[in-house]
């Protein structure tokens, strides 16, 4: 079984900030950053998370690599809760799950030479002797397409794309199985973006890496991810195989995100159409009752403010939480709790199955 087991499982994870009352001004106010999100990462595959700023996608990424602890719920790596395992197991999880940061200008220590930046994880995890570290740093830089001479230089001497390569080399230093990349290309120029995306695909094949890629850019995710999850105000509203999510979209919010992508294509005339989605995302301090998207949703009705929609299966591993989906679900009363798990696909293809039900039980 362990061969089929998802490499990373996120189960009912909740992250709230400010509930401890550390701030006098905001005492009692709680930011609901991530609210009951479950998902799985399968070995060697790429999952994309998309959403607007403040939807909780970066927080979820930090929870997965263990930079934040969930308020409730669990994150497991290879079947072991990353917070509850033995010291050695926790240490291993830290090694196997690495984060690649968004801003290549802010995430590299400007006073450290590139060689030390790349080798630092090896020092922290006591991986190799000092002499071998230089060799390892040089070979890591080679893997991301930078010459070994880069080791003796400082981050300011590199362009944005090159810095993102350095960030990638550092994330690879401990031979992780999973890399969580938070907006890996959004700070880069268009012509450099494709270089980094190609490099990430090459490295994935070479090292069987599992990626969790967080981005506000659906086009990038459509291209690089096997499965995509859509977050809105801390909730997972839709999840599905990349092609299915784009071609057979279920949730009105996902539809709005797709419709607002500016397309670099010849248009017969300047397009005049209605605004895809009105207003802005409400505050995570006081999320709307029921469906959190209802305040901006063109399809919302009374039930949307009263009952929170559960994730339902729409076939082929595609799930969404919406009372008025854009197409009909396959199994009406079967909430699927952990998107990305193989059982979702099985269940969806056989809606009458007795097993259709709580997949986490």
């Amino acid at each position, binding site marked *: 079984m362990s061969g089929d087991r998802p490499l990373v499982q996120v189960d009912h994870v909740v992250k709230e900030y400010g509930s401890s009352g550390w701030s006098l001004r905001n005492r009692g106010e709680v930011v609901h950053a991530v609210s009951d999100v479950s998902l799985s990462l399968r070995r060697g595959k790429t999952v994309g998370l998309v959403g607007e700023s403040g939807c909780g996608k970066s927080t979820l990424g930090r929870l997965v690599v263990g930079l934040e602890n969930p308020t409730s719920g669990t994150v497991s790596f290879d079947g072991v809760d990353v917070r509850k395992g033995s010291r050695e197991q926790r240490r291993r999880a830290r090694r196997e799950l690495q984060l690649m940061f968004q801003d290549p200008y802010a995430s590299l220590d400007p006073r450290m030479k590139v060689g030390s930046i790349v080798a630092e994880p090896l020092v922290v995890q006591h991986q190799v002797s000092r002499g071998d570290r230089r060799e390892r740093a040089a070979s890591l830089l080679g893997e991301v397409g930078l010459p070994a001479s880069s080791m003796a230089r400082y981050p300011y001497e590199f362009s944005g794309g090159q810095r993102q390569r350095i960030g990638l080399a550092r994330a690879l230093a401990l031979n992780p199985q999973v890399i969580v990349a938070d907006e890996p290309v959004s700070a880069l120029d*268009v012509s450099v973006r*494709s270089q980094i995306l190609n490099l990430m695909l090459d490295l994935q094949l070479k090292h069987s890496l599992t990626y969790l890629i967080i981005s506000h850019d659906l086009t990038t995710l459509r*291209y690089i991810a096997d499965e995509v999850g859509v977050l809105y105000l801390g909730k997972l509203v839709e999840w599905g195989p*990349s092609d299915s999510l784009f071609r057979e979209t279920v949730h009105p919010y996902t539809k709005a995100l*797709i419709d607002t992508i*500016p397309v670099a294509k*010849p248009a017969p005339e300047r397009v005049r159409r209605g605004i*895809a989605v009105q207003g802005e995302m409400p505050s995570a301090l006081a999320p709307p009752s029921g469906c959190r998207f209802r305040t901006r949703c063109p399809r919302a009705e009374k039930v949307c403010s009263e009952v929170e929609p559960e994730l339902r299966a729409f076939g082929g591993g595609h799930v969404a939480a919406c009372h008025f989906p854009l197409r009909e679900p396959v199994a009406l009363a079967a909430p699927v709790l952990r998107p990305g798990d193989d059982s979702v696909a099985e269940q969806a293809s056989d809606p009458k199955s007795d097993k259709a039900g709580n997949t986490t039980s």
Partner: protein
Amino acid sequence: MATMLEISDLVVDIRSGRSTVRAVDGISLTLDPGRTLGLVGESGCGKSTTGLAVLGLLPAGGKVTRGSIRIDGHEIVGLREAEARAIRGRTVGVVFQDPMTALNPTQRIGAQVAEPLLIHGMANRSAAMKQAVDLLGEVGLSRPAAQAERFPHELSGGMRQRVMIALALICGPKLLVADEPTTALDVTTQDQILQLFDSLQQSRDMSILLITHDMGVVAGHTDEVAVMYAGRLAELATTHRLFGGYRHRYTEALLESIPTLDTPRGQRLATIAGLPPNLGGQLAPCRFAPRCAHAEQVCFDVEPQWSEQGEHGYACHLPRRTDADLMTESAGAPS
């Protein structure tokens, strides 16, 4: 009809310390009333510098060393600052990328939006405030009178950008310069702001110079497009002609390196090798040649001349052949 903005052979040098960088090297553009021109390119291509030259906001050390900028028929290059400001003040509005740094954090937004009217002596205080509130409503702030009493930090990014737009429009400009106005915003908010630009342009008959790196934004919201590379104009055409039959190899490479919703998953993306050149260093005659997949010896020997046909111009020795070219060739039509 007179042109709203006419830039000819503009050269901007930026001096820092002992070195001088030619950030804009001889570009020419025109923008007619009521039209939108997209100025597109990567970081450092000179698109923002061009916008700043029009606005008279070049950074310290920056100077227009050649060429002309005419706004609504008035030449502003060579004028004294006060004279140029008098022309720009009422004619040109500006929206920058980051509304948080462009707004005064200590002043209520209504007062900020009203201020230009007072500075230019176009209204008294109470009339200016009323105009500001009306305009805040027009750019999409709900309950504008109440919002006018708030400070910038109390608003979301999208709302702040709407305030910036109101501030740009308060004096009723004929020309709006928008430098990456939606780059810091989410796609849904970006969509709202771009549609706001479109409707404001129609209701006010404004010209817009839209500076952006995003080909998608350009495709949907401009009438004409100028593609810049390393301080030079690579290609200039109506938006429809450009996307229907781009000729310059840089435009081609740029468009092909962007994944679209139709790009097969996992397929390697076309890339542009290397990095944009350092403008302070040695530049090839065709500045894109060192990164161009189609470059031949001539590109490294001779500067490509600007060639123009109808509403489409470009500077490339070995331009991409369009579908129309290929059809003509296959028909064997003697030219």
